[in-house]
């Protein structure tokens, strides 16, 4: 038997033993049980996490810098790639921010469609979160049930926007296109699949002894700490704070629908799971109400200094041709100023802080990513728990590298 030479391992990757018997353990950045590419340097005492340092930045793409150098509408496809499991919400949030800056409003039909697509995105976000969380806790079957449901919704989004994961559906002042003719029927069918698979997953997870034990009372955070750490979304609501941007400061037409904001009481992973599960049912409620109320009419702002004129007009008259040319080359030009627009994303408040200097390109575009604060607070949530609990907590934090690191 030949003796292999010990490979030259960099110091960081070794188990470092501290003087008092604690170990420094490296988890990630690429680890099968990790929900994304994040590196955690854990100080462990036996199986307990004493301290942790979370290192991010593996998916930084310079989104904000890039957007300063392209026109307002060219930013839209980049926003798809922020939270790539709920791209419509980012599209809508960004478009709303620019429209707020310009002081314009889209027609009612466009607002309804934006609500519908946002809620479909919220369901795909939560499906992914719960599915991946269950998979990481070795309930692989549930993952396929939920991802199948997500696929039905992705197809729905695809039929409207022409893209499953990167739809780029909104434009400043409207949408790229109207909904397809049989969208209502397709939605009803897709929701049938989602409801069935959700009921199956519910049966398999909610009262499952193993799943319950791994989520209940793990990753606990108190209400006060969650607020101080700027948590938003399901993780904040699991502590019992009923804060949801859709209810608190309704944007679009959210004030016209009847829906509930589920809250937890313990602030642990199990409550986060239950909050997400219920939110999906509430989102379906919103979509069904919105489809029932959906008004007819245009989906785009009538002003050709905001939205591209139809192709027939571009080829038919000089004014539309000029408008087309100016919009394509210079883009929309909001007045100088700054706005902050918040929308409720899958993980919490997605905020767009936009500064314009009056030209066709944003002077500064800042995205407030909801999982940034959640990941920052992860150290607090895993402290004192077992190493194995990191997997369930990190899964329920639902870190999305695209929006975390932009």
């Amino acid at each position, binding site marked *: 038997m030949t003796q292999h030479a010990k490979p030259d391992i960099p110091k960081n990757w070794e188990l470092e033993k501290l003087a008092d018997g604690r170990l420094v353990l490296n988890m990630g950045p690429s680890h099968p049980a990790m929900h994304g590419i994040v590196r955690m340097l854990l100080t462990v005492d036996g199986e307990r996490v004493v301290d942790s340092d979370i290192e991010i930045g593996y998916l930084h793409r310079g989104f904000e810098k890039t957007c300063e150098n392209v026109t307002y509408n060219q930013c839209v496809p980049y926003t798809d790639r922020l939270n790539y499991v709920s791209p419509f919400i980012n599209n809508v949030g960004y478009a709303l921010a620019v429209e707020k800056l310009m002081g314009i409003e889209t027609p009612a039909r466009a607002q309804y469609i934006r609500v519908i697509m946002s809620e479909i995105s919220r369901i795909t976000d939560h499906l992914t979160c719960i599915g991946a969380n269950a998979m990481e806790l070795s309930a692989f079957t549930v993952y396929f049930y939920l991802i199948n449901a997500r696929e039905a919704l992705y197809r729905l989004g695809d039929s409207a926007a022409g893209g499953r994961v990167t739809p780029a559906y909104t434009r400043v002042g409207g949408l790229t296109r109207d909904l397809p003719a049989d969208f209502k029927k397709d939605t009803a069918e897709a929701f049938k699949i989602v409801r069935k698979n959700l009921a199956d997953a519910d049966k398999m997870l909610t009262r499952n002894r193993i799943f319950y034990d791994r989520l209940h009372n793990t990753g606990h955070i108190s209400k006060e700490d969650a607020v101080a750490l700027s948590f938003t979304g399901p993780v904040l609501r699991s502590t019992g704070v009923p804060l949801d941007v859709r209810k608190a400061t309704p944007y679009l037409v959210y004030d016209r629908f009847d829906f509930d904001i589920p809250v937890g009481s313990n602030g642990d992973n199990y409550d986060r799971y239950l909050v997400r599960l219920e939110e999906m049912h509430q989102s379906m409620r919103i979509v069904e109400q919105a489809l029932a109320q959906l008004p007819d009419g245009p989906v785009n702002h009538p002003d050709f200094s905001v939205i591209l004129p139809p192709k027939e007009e571009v080829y038919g008259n000089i004014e539309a041709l000029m408008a087309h040319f100016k919009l394509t080359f210079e883009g929309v030009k909001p007045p100088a100023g*700054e706005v902050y627009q918040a929308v409720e994303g899958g993980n919490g408040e997605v905020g767009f802080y936009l500064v314009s200097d009056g030209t066709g390109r944003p002077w500064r575009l800042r995205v407030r990513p909801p999982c940034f604060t959640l990941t920052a607070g992860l150290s607090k949530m895993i402290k004192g728990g077992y190493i194995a609990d990191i997997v369930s907590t990190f899964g329920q934090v639902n870190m999305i590298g695209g929006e975390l690191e932009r």
Partner: protein
Amino acid sequence: MNSYLLDALRAKFPDDLLETHAFRGDETAVIRKEALLKAAAFLRDGLGFDFLMDLTAADYLPRDPRFELVCHFYSSAHNYRLRLKCPVYADDAVVASLTQLWPGANWFEREVYDMFGIKFDGHPDLRRILMYDGFEGHPLRKDYPLKKRQPRIPHRD
């Protein structure tokens, strides 16, 4: 423009409040950076702003003061938002850290330091967050070229 909130800030900090405005309904107060910590503490304890929703900066090169620190506060009790900004000069780019008021400011401030090079006085752990150690410059500064390439860093131990 009369806003209770901005009036309260003006009454409390008559010398430090530089400007207030409410463009598109976003109420904004611009305050001297020396008073940032005091003003933020007053917002939290006196006016009920319990959330520090966002903290970021913007570079206004070639204007002087060059940078602006931008904080977005939210009050869940009053359902109200406020933007607090403070101008930061390039030759004295140090601001008081808000981490002692909101622990959630920790990573926001690390990102501002990483992207703009603004330092935070009193921050417990001011390191780069998105960029790696050894990265030169601060990418979101306007004088950082869009397509600048960085030298490859040697393998770290």
